[in-house]
């Protein structure tokens, strides 16, 4: 079935460095959502992207949806220790109503 690949699986950065995670699909996606899960917590909705080439910003976080709608990225500028967690992309299955399929996530560690 449809799935997405998230890379990298794990990233370790020093506080203040930038971080980017990528979500790639072999098929065109109708939309994509991003979630953050803190260690020991549950996924928290961050944003959704719908349009080809769409770029959205939330403070230090920048989300992009590729022109072909087959990939997406999340970029964090000047990471802070509060950014620690796992970032998941999720997409709506074609014809699958509201069912979201999640990627395996990218785990971010930030060292002060």
């Amino acid at each position, binding site marked *: 079935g449809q799935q997405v690949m998230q890379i990298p699986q794990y990233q370790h950065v020093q506080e203040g460095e930038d971080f980017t995670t990528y979500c790639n699909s072999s098929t065109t996606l109708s939309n994509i959502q991003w*979630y953050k899960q803190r260690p020991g*917590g549950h996924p928290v909705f961050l944003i959704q992207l719908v349009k080809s080439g769409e770029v959205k910003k939330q403070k230090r976080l920048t989300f992009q949806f590729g022109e072909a709608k087959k990939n997406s990225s999340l970029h964090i500028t000047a990471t802070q220790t509060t950014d620690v967690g796992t970032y*998941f992309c999720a997409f709506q299955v074609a014809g699958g*109503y*509201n069912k979201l399929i*999640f*990627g*395996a*996530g990218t785990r971010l560690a930030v060292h002060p």
Partner: protein
Amino acid sequence: GAGVSQTPSNKVTEKGKYVELRCDPISGHTALYWYRQSLGQGPEFLIYFQGTGAADDSGLPNDRFFAVRPEGSVSTLKIQRTERGDSAVYLCASSLGTAPNYGYTFGSGTRLTVV
């Protein structure tokens, strides 16, 4: 309520026993989902309710798993004859409407351990 409430937060059961996991979604959210998350993995879809009916139960792994939402609000995930492989965090989420306009609000999950 203010958020999605799941009970119990932890459940330890013996292999072969029956368990029920409860989810109380945000008031007014018609869509309710159950996911299962194993360590180091993303949430895995189990079942989706729109109102009282199961709109999509394609993620239920086998007939030992069943879920209900009789009044369109609280949902119960039921697992019969539990196996050690059922151990995971079971997450419930609700949303006001359908994607792409709405994201999910997840509960804190029930950590199920089958010994």
